[in-house]
């Protein structure tokens, strides 16, 4: 029998809150952070809103040796990992190096760093490209830098499956914990709000072109017309439950109880999307009946067809309006790989505090038969949360987050 994989530490970097409790109080207050892009001049682009993290000064948190070699997403990831370790009461120096690993997800790598070096290449020549470009852009760089900074030599890697990757990384971490590595830093931080990242995202044709921050990202609303990109995410300390207990972990937020990922069938196959199967298989993997689920954190694509697929999948598995559904990401924008780990962190806090945070800005379309939590947060005991995430190109993933067993 496999021991449980539990969450013992959380590190959050979100547009509406840098740090766990700052984020959580913003979410409960329904305070969003979507606004006009400030990191570059968006005037000439069709999409102009983003959820940006303000006030992050990397120099305040990281040594100067790391600054010339890191993209913004890596700086945020290193600091979030520090916070997660601190929250878990883990001092990596005191643990065996091979007992700790790092498995993150990444959507696009270090785009801002890469853009700067490409500009140097075009305008000045190859001699002006930083030697650190060799890895600073790379998908796996957050895992690598976190493992180096903290001396973690256990299994490490990266999962790339767009937004679904944030859950797939947690699942991969759980596999490694079951295989015998007791502690894995897992989750994801993405941050590519720069012109190069922007045009790459525009190519999906799923970005909202609205200019009113209060109406730009409204999943499950009749006015849904794409999402607003954001930056940030969360890193989690995952541990074997027995190991966490033996070292006297100061808290266990929750258990990563179930996971499944599916892939949509090819267009024209006549078969439906794979999200429902992901939900059913994750519940089954977690030994959880639909009736036990207290809240669903939706993927919330805000693309009408995708909203319909998700609402239908939820309704088919749980019944019409049978389970509360929420999407706090309406406050941050979609964080790509960072979104689902942030939702898992949020689910942990929902379990801790017995409250479901709201979906903001959206008025539920009458076409969807789901119990969407809008308005104030809903006070209710939460023992089991289901987190959903979909990635561009057909990725579907679901994770069951369950209150720790006594």
């Amino acid at each position, binding site marked *: 029998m496999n021991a449980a994989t539990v969450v013992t530490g959380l590190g959050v970097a979100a547009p509406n809150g840098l740090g766990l409790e700052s984020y959580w109080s913003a979410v409960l207050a329904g305070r969003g952070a979507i606004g006009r892009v400030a990191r570059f001049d968006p005037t000439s682009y069709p999409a102009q809103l983003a959820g940006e993290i303000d006030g992050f000064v990397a120099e305040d948190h990281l*040594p*100067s*040796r790391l600054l*010339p*070699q890191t993209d913004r997403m890596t700086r945020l990831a290193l600091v979030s990992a520090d916070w997660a370790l601190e929250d878990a009461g883990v001092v990596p120096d005191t643990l065996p190096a091979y007992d700790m690993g790092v498995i993150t997800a990444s959507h696009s790598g270090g785009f801002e760093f890469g853009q700067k070096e490409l500009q140097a290449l075009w305008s000045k020549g190859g*001699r*002006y490209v*930083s*030697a*650190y470009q060799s890895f600073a852009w790379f998908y796996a760089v957050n895992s690598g830098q976190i493992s180096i900074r903290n001396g973690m030599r256990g299994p490490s890697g990266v999962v790339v499956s767009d937004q679904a990757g944030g859950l797939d990384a947690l699942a991969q971490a759980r596999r490694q914990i079951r295989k015998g590595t007791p502690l894995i830093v897992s989750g994801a931080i993405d941050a590519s709000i720069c012109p190069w990242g922007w045009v790459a995202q525009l190519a999906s044709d799923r970005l909202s072109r609205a200019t009113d921050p209060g109406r730009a990202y409204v999943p499950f609303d009749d006015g849904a017309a794409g999402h607003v990109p954001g930056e940030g995410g969360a890193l989690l300390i995952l541990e074997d439950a027995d190991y966490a207990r033996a070292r006297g972990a100061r808290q266990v937020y929750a258990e990563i109880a179930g996971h499944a990922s599916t892939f949509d069938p090819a267009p024209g196959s006549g078969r439906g999307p794979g999200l429902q199967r992901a939900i059913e298989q994750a519940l089954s993997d977690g030994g959880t009946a639909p009736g036990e689920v207290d809240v669903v954190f939706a993927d919330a694509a805000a693309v009408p067809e995708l909203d319909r697929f998700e609402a239908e999948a939820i309704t088919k598995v749980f019944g019409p309006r049978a389970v509360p559904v929420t999407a706090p990401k309406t406050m941050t924008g979609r964080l790509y790989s960072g979104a689902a780990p942030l939702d898992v962190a949020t689910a942990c806090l929902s379990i801790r505090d017995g409250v479901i945070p709201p979906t903001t800005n959206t008025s539920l379309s009458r076409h969807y038969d789901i119990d969407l939590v809008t308005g104030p947060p809903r006070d209710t005991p939460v023992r089991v949360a289901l987190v959903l995430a979909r990635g561009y190109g057909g990725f579907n993933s679901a994770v069951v987050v369950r209150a720790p067993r006594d």
Partner: protein
Amino acid sequence: MPATPFTIDDLKSILREGAGADEGVDLDGDILDAEFDALGYESLAMLETAGRIEREYGISLDEEIFADARTPRALIALVNEQLPAAQAV
């Protein structure tokens, strides 16, 4: 192109700009004969440092330069060998 020799201060500013400074190391201390490795600079940091020296001083350094130049003093000497201004002093 600079018309003065390459000095320890020039090297320190290039190191700081291109690779930063290790927390446990005081670059303003007596580092002339310290090995780069001991100063916290790995091979990629030295590659970046060599690239910056090359473009700022308009010279071309041998790819194997750090096999010979393991300390700031040795690197400064090798760079100055290539600078006409320094040779004229």
